[in-house]
């Protein structure tokens, strides 16, 4: 897909950023995505607030003393309450925090792994390359969600960080393939030859000369990895294998589904699903807009 990237000579990072931003701004979908993400970030930020106002707004343990079943939206509970009388809005806010936490940390780890492995594989070639790429293939044929399910079966309840770790460990191969292809083409360029002739070590070549050229691509893939991490965690929680001590959007959907409220309580069924779908969509749009910044061929009239 987005493989051959234009060679960028290092000018000033700030100038480069400004140039990229001016292209990004022209992309309407990119702007919508960014706006939505800011809203979600604010939600995550304000998730600390409700429990401070009143303990009954605590997303996990707070129960309204006078409500013991699911009720529709009211002044006291803007989005209604769940089957135990917990406030849905504060759960939704807490869910935003979990989504960012899971998405960004899992994506960061898998991108880190994918970039490092891709560069090493492409640069070293030979046995190292064969070994790493076969390893990538082994991981790629295993559906991540099902792997996590099997691990949950064997090791019992997985904590949220264990889930993040598993997602990170199983989502790097796609990235590493792209980075490897990019590294292979960079390796042929004269400036790498020049660095070698000048006596630079392998480590120096990889980190000083190859890495700056593949990093934009890594960041692009990070947005797509964020979406996949959020979806996998949500699906896992939905199936009942999430971390029982965190309130995530997937968990909320599981509660609606398992307590048989899906036909009775649209005020409860709709918000978490809309949030998961929208946050995925916004990261996706962000990624596509970034793709346009990085790849001039994709720009309008290009």
């Amino acid at each position: 897909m987005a493989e051959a990237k234009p060679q960028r000579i290092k000018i000033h990072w700030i100038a480069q950023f400004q140039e990229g931003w001016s292209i990004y701004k022209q992309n309407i979908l990119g702007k919508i995505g960014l706006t939505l993400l800011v809203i979600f970030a604010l939600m995550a930020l304000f998730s600390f607030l409700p429990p401070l106002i009143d303990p009954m707004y605590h997303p996990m343990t707070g129960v309204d003393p006078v409500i013991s079943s699911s009720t529709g939206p009211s002044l006291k509970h803007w989005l209604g309450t769940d089957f135990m009388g917990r406030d849905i809005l504060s759960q939704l806010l807490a869910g935003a925090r979990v989504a960012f936490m899971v998405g960004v940390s899992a994506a960061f780890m898998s991108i880190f792994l994918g970039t490092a492995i891709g560069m090493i594989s492409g640069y070293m070639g030979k046995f190292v390359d064969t070994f790493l790429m076969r390893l990538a293939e082994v991981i790629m044929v295993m559906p991540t969600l099902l792997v996590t399910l099997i691990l949950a079966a064997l090791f019992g309840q997985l904590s949220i960080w264990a889930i993040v770790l598993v997602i990170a460990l199983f989502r790097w191969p796609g990235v590493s393939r792209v980075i490897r292809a990019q590294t292979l083409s960079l390796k042929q360029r004269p400036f790498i030859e020049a660095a070698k002739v000048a006596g630079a070590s392998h480590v120096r070549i990889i980190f000083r000369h190859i890495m700056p050229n593949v990093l934009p691509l890594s960041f692009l893939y990070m947005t797509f990895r964020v979406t996949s991490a959020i979806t996998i965690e949500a699906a896992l929680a939905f199936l009942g294998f999430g971390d029982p001590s965190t309130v995530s959007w997937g968990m909320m959907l599981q509660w609606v589904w398992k307590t048989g409220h899906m036909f009775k309580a649209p005020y409860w069924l709709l918000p978490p699903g809309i949030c998961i779908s929208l946050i995925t969509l916004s990261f996706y749009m962000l990624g596509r807009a970034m793709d346009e910044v990085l790849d001039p061929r994709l720009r309008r009239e290009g």
Partner: protein
Amino acid sequence: MDLWRYIGRRLAQIVIIFFVILTVLFLVFRLAPGDPITRMVDPDMTPEDAALLIAQLGLDQPLHIQYIYYVKNFFAGQFGDSFHYGQPVLDIIKHRLPNTILLFTTSIILSALVGVFLGKIASWHKGKKTDTGMTIGALVTHTLFLPWLALLLIWIFAYKMGWFPITGMVSEDIWLDPTSQFWQKALDVGHHLVLPLGTLFLFHFGSYLLIMRSSMLETLKEDYILTARAKGLTEKVIRNRHAAPNAALPVVTTVGLSLAFSINGGALTETVFTWPGIGRELVFSVSQNDYPLAQATFLLITLVVLVSNLVVDVLYAYLDPRIRY
């Protein structure tokens, strides 16, 4: 022929990859906390039956001997008995597999065909309203949270409208009635199939649309399209006969590469609709701690992904004469 050598090489790779997965799964199941015997032998079994099964699976042997047993049993189709069903795992899989194939393959084929068709149209109207609408529609449906989409469809079309059954794959009154004709049964399954198929279709067609669209835009810049224009061919002929078949190739690759990802979605859909397939069985077996069933279904799914990847590679080589291995 070169193609056969290529297939042979890929086949060898697949066998190796599968063995690696088989081995990793063996180690994970044996090294996880807890006793492997309690994990593979149903706690409700009589002691005699349990002893027989332990001997059959080699669980009383040291680890490396166990591994030999494990591989041998795998090729003999011996996966032990399911705790929950009390039947050989292989029998359960045999019953569930056709259901999954029915739902999964129809959804992939349908969404790929529609995605390619719509992607072609979108690319042709690049920058216009049709294109913008389709791109946004594809982005939105593709990023919907799949189980939630399934719940929504059930809520609207099965619960509110009452057009389709809420869950399951067959209606008992039709299937248990000896006077039912084959077509009645087929119609019944088709009726149950609509919503899960619709869920998977809505979720998948968008990605094919987007890929087809960008691939078409690339293809339209090729020299042979210019040649076709210079020859005075109509736009329709250029689009349908010259550009589209070439542009559809990346879609074929994507179907193969995203298969593992699609299987996640398939398992979720089967679970929400209680469609009696392999994916639901895996989710169910995990929640029941039915380890023999979980292990076997997982292996089967990876095997299917591997083989399908090979099929896609071969198909690609067949479809694109420029690619010769």
